[in-house]
């Protein structure tokens, strides 16, 4: 993975962590609220660790770029206000993420650490998938998000692996490289406090 791709991975983790942290306090069950928030925090922690590989100032890299400089995939940007879609995305993301993190483990020690923590994310996602797989809301959400999930991984071997694990047919992917309406909205909120003070202000 080159630097550009690493940045994409970091941005994916930041934005999905950001989206998942939106559920803190309003998840369907209190017990799940606590668990889900840990997952969101872990994702942001992974993003931070990846940014630190690429820059001395992880915060500047995370927050001070312009919109078109973010390399996240459309899947993570989507504003999903209901649980079916949120947990469907979580599941698809973990299945896809495992594929790309495994591929990275040999060349990147950080990927080994990330993978160990992701074990619990995968258990959590599988647990929900098992329980909701027959619920129409969940199945529909998975199908809706499927083209986005494909776009998370590069075309070829990794994408084929995803198709085989999820069991849905290959369709046209929503590719990385363009952004959805979700990102400007996130960026605005994510940077509003930071932009209210001159660059270099301490918080």
């Amino acid at each position, binding site marked *: 993975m080159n630097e550009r791709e690493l940045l994409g991975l970091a941005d994916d983790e930041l934005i999905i962590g950001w989206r998942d942290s939106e559920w803190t306090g309003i998840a369907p069950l209190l017990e799940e609220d606590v668990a889900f928030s840990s997952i969101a925090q872990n994702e942001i922690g992974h993003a931070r660790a990846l940014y630190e590989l690429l820059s001395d100032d992880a915060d500047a890299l995370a927050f001070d770029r312009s919109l078109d400089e973010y390399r996240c995939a459309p899947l993570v940007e989507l504003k999903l206000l209901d649980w079916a879609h949120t947990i469907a995305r979580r599941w698809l993301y973990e299945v896809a993420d495992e594929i790309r993190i495994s591929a990275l483990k040999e060349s990147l020690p950080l990927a080994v650490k990330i993978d160990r923590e992701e074990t*619990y994310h995968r258990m959590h996602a599988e647990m929900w998938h098992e329980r909701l797989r027959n619920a129409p809301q969940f199945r529909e959400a998975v199908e809706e998000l499927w083209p986005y999930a494909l776009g998370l991984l590069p075309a070829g071997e990794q994408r084929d692996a995803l198709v085989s694990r999820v069991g849905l047919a290959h369709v046209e992917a929503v590719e990385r490289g363009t952004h959805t309406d979700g990102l400007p909205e996130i960026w605005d909120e994510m940077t509003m406090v930071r932009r209210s003070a001159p660059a270099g202000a301490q918080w």
Partner: protein
Amino acid sequence: MIWEVFRQDRRGAPFEHAGSVVAPDAEFAEAWAREQYGRRGESVALWLAPRDAVHVVDDWADEFDLKYRRVDGYSIKARLKEARERAGTAGPR
């Protein structure tokens, strides 16, 4: 279903009751108890048991003097003193 959570602070310590989570099965109970009782690394292990599996015992018959089974049922000071005096082994106090 209510699952009772017992946690161990560090290796070798006793498992202590920490609270409970509501969950449909062991998988969910585990996922949720892990975070509620371990997200700060404060537990090295958890035991989860359905509340129904816990048999509560909280009443005792206390009719007769059972002190002979306990340390506070023995007062050896006076006899020990006498025995030492007889043996000439009583030291200065």
